[in-house]
């Protein structure tokens, strides 16, 4: 009963949260136009008086933003013309003119300031009605879970319309239309240059050709991922919601100013300034991880490894990814997440970041050195001792969200051999892309020349940010939780995971040990492996599991009903940890064990 009330409150909160961006009216007046220069201000005021937008009441932020963008374009061309007539003394061309990227910023900030209505009047109240109520509802649902006996809590997962997954057809439809959508939008994102989308399409086709034809996967049809008649309709709704959320967040944040408004009080408390869309995202991310982390702990109460690991990701997200960077900003240091590592943190070597770090005194230099030491010493060293799990399932924010918000969907990862083939091409492809992109960016940084061969490093990095940083990591990475499992990004995309994986596979003490001959091939381990590793294939023949992709979440060992699997670090057999068969096979002199 309490749980049902919790779900009810959560749904109400979700509905309010979803409506917040459209609740307020917008009225433009001379006080609420946001600008950063008097020249801009003057031009915008003139344009506003000419087109009569001042004082007009807009019920919809869509039409407001449309009109205001138009207004700014007018102001832009005004300034353009004035600039031709001659710049004022001591003012640079780009400070005088109104650039396109400035327009984006002005639209967001003005739209936010021009809001009038219940949300702007009571941001705190609406924070509580949406996010606060959501937390309360979530906790009312989650806390009663602590009353049940500790143990595996998987009853009904494949009967639940939220978590039972999609048939291959539905999954293909979502994946296909998302890819097509991204490539079409990417065409306009790159200034109507077809090269990037077509190039990416060519890479996708090449990988498919390699998997299907060269690696002979065409006739190896995987087992159905679900009965055709069964489809998780709630999962589909959730997936669509998450996908739309990310699309708006990355590419249309100007419509989300209502969320920024309700986050303002918290933002001012932490960093002293107003909330951007990224503050909203960080806040939601952290709150969701904390609430769903409590759920994860309730679910694995019998398992200390799971509880400690979950507490760890909750801590690193809250302290290192959310609060500390905001405090750094407040203290006039660069925004910096001490646990984010290149190439996951793909803009670490971008000129603006390097310049910012190097112009921020000792602290900035420390941050720069820290980041580089993590890449070249921290990653290999810790991975040698513990496997990639020290990061992927103990520290990382992406991993942390996957292990908390994504936990209900871990069983939806594709375990087929075909998926593994795709995985290796794609993740290593992204890794190569990230490294090449960074090399080009650094080349430009040191030489000042932006063209390398026929490519401009600016365009390469823009496309990387769009395709990998936003579309893959965000839209697909999180949006596809209910559709393809909770580690789509970590498994197929993350370049840092690719780097970790190579070390884990070839030089690490980590493995998952199989306990002799106790495996009954039931399949719980494989089913609940979020990385899509067919754990059972190893366990049933008594082989250690050593896989580049394993993030060491430990759930396979937790769900095993026969006590067969254990995550371990050992140096005694480091050379043969991948090959030795430990199952109890028949034994007699002269009979060798075959694999």
């Amino acid at each position, binding site marked *: 009963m309490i749980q049902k009330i919790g779900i009810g409150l959560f749904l109400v909160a979700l509905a309010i949260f979803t409506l917040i961006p459209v609740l307020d009216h917008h009225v433009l007046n001379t006080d609420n136009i946001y600008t950063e220069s008097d020249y801009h201000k003057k031009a915008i005021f003139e344009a506003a008086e000419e087109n009569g937008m001042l004082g007009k009441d807009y019920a919809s932020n869509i039409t407001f933003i449309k009109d205001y963008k138009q207004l700014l374009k007018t102001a832009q061309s005004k300034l353009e013309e004035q600039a031709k007539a001659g710049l004022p003394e001591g003012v640079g061309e780009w400070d005088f003119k109104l650039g396109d990227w400035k327009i984006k910023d002005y639209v967001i900030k003005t739209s936010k300031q021009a809001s009038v209505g219940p949300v702007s009047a009571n941001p705190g109240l609406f924070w509580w009605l949406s996010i606060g109520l959501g937390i309360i509802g979530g906790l009312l649902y989650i806390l009663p879970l602590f009353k049940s006996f500790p143990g595996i809590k998987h009853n009904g997962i494949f009967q639940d319309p939220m978590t039972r997954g999609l048939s291959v057809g539905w999954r293909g439809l979502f994946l296909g239309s998302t890819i097509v959508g991204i490539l079409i939008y990417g065409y306009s994102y790159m200034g109507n240059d077809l090269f990037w989308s077509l190039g990416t399409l060519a890479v996708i086709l090449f990988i498919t050709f390699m998997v299907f034809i060269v690696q002979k996967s065409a006739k190896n049809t995987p087992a159905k991922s*679900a009965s055709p008649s069964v489809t998780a309709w709630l999962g589909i709704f959730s997936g669509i919601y998450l996908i739309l959320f990310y699309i708006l967040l990355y590419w249309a944040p100007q419509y989300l100013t209502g969320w920024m408004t309700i986050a303002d009080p918290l933002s001012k408390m932490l960093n002293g300034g107003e909330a951007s869309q990224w503050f909203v995202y960080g806040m939601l991310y952290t709150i969701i991880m904390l609430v769903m982390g409590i759920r994860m702990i309730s679910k694995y109460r019998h398992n200390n*490894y799971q509880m400690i690991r979950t507490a760890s990701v909750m801590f690193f997200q809250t302290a290192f990814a959310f609060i500390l960077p905001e405090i750094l900003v407040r203290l006039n240091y660069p925004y910096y997440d001490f646990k984010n590592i290149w190439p996951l943190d793909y803009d670490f070597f971008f000129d603006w970041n390097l310049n910012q770090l190097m112009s921020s005194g000792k602290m900035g230099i420390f941050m720069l050195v820290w980041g580089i030491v993590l890449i070249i010493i921290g990653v290999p060293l810790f991975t040698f001792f513990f496997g990639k799990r020290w990061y992927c399932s103990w520290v990382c924010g992406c991993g942390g969200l996957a292990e908390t918000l994504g936990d209900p969907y871990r069983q939806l990862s594709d375990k087929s051999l075909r998926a593994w083939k795709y995985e290796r091409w794609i993740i290593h492809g992204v890794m190569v892309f990230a490294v090449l992109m960074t090399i080009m960016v650094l080349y430009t940084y040191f030489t000042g020349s932006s063209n390398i061969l026929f490519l401009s490093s600016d365009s390469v990095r823009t496309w990387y940010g769009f395709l990998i940083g936003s579309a893959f990591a965000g839209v697909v990475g999180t949006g596809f939780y209910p559709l393809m499992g909770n580690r789509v990004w970590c498994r197929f995309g993350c370049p840092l995971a690719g780097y970790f994986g190579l070390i884990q596979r070839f030089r690490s003490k980590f493995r998952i040990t199989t306990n002799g001959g106790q495996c009954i091939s039931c399949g719980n381990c494989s089913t609940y492996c979020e990385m899509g590793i067919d754990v059972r294939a190893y366990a049933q023949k008594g082989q250690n599991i050593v896989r580049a992709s394993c993030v060491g979440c430990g759930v396979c060992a937790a769900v095993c009903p*026969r*006590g067969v699997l254990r995550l371990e670090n050992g140096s005694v057999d480091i050379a043969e940890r991948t090959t030795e068969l430990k199952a*109890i096979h028949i034994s007699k002199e002269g009979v060798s064990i075959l694999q």
Partner: protein
Amino acid sequence: MHIVIIGNGISGVTAARYIRKLSDHKITMISAETDYFFSRTALMYIYMGHMRFEDTQPYEPWFWEKNRIDLLRARVQQVKTASKELVLDNGKTITYDKLVLATGSASNKFGWPGQDLDGVHGLYSYQDLEAMERHSAGLKKAVIVGGGLIGIEMAEMFHARHIPVTFLVRETKYWNNVLPPEESAMVSRHILENGIDLRFETELKEIHDDGSGKACAITTSKGERIECGFVGLTAGVHPNINFLKDGDLKLEKGIVINEYLETNIADVYAIGDCAQLSEPRPGRRPIEAIWYTGRMMGETVAYNICGKKIAYDPGIWFNSAKFIDIEYQVYGTLLAKPPENHQAIYWEHKEGRKSIRIVYDRNNSQVLGFNLMGVRYRHEVCEKWIKEKTNIETVLQQLGMANFDPEFYKEYEAEVITQYNQQTGKNIQLKRKRGLDAALRFLKKMTP
């Protein structure tokens, strides 16, 4: 050479896989149950919604074609050993050069009135699972008869769907003919604390017909009538060999085989649940209907068929199960009613859901067996200790090496040793904590 295997369970599939590894013979595997091999032990997880049926299949469908193992979905009605022919239910016949019988088990029925009514089922086959599913919609109550490993699985299944269960057990405590008294009491407690209506010393007398050929209630041996829409018969299994009754294969309870898994007829082998060893190893039963022996037999028969003669050696006994939330592992000799020379060290966690029992020989201090509840131990380490007749005090000092619980779990080995010291007045100390390297070094040491 054409090798035909009847049955696609763990025994038959292991046989097929190893024959393929060892040879290029033509292999045909026949099953009436399912198209592809699935893990029988995982049937319960499908019902409980932990997995899809597809997830219980250890190999993807293309595996069989790739390994040239021909699958045939049919029921064998007759084996003609003279002409080496099999008669199938679709009227066709198929010839073989060598035949492996791996037909598994069937649920026991002891002649109860009403035992063949609709809504009365065992839990062994995929069809049994379908029947349970069919009867579950709107089911108000299920009665389960027989307190073994399948009984508790079925109880957990209904419990997971919030269907009230009455669980009739003949013994005074759950499975106390196999488990020692303390462990048996622990599991009984756990069943009851989950809200399952567990009745001891109660048997089934009669199943009642609702007038339409469907079960509607039962009467117990104590005369109580319990209304129920489903009756689960889980009082053990027997070899599934009815279709062989008219042939010339030697049958007793199962298909009688020698230590090379050969039947009395040349080129016919039997493995797994359906096979009965004429001379089992000391301390072992002639029919052991468990997953692991089926797998070992499958491997052994492959060698024998492919010309490397090897006697079946099941090694040191081991088994495992899970009683709702309590995991169970056993290694070596562990008897519910131990002989005089068996001495046990028994430690139980204060919450009553974990225990460790180590049995050794009172006379020569050699370790004999391990029984673990809610604690995981390393199979190979325990096996090696038992095989090498290790002194109990050596085992205790090194006990941490056997611990296989996940990282950050509390280790209880020191408490086990305290128990031993209290029992014997000695002062043994734990010298080894949980850890992989020590275990690996120990396992790599050659047996003297």
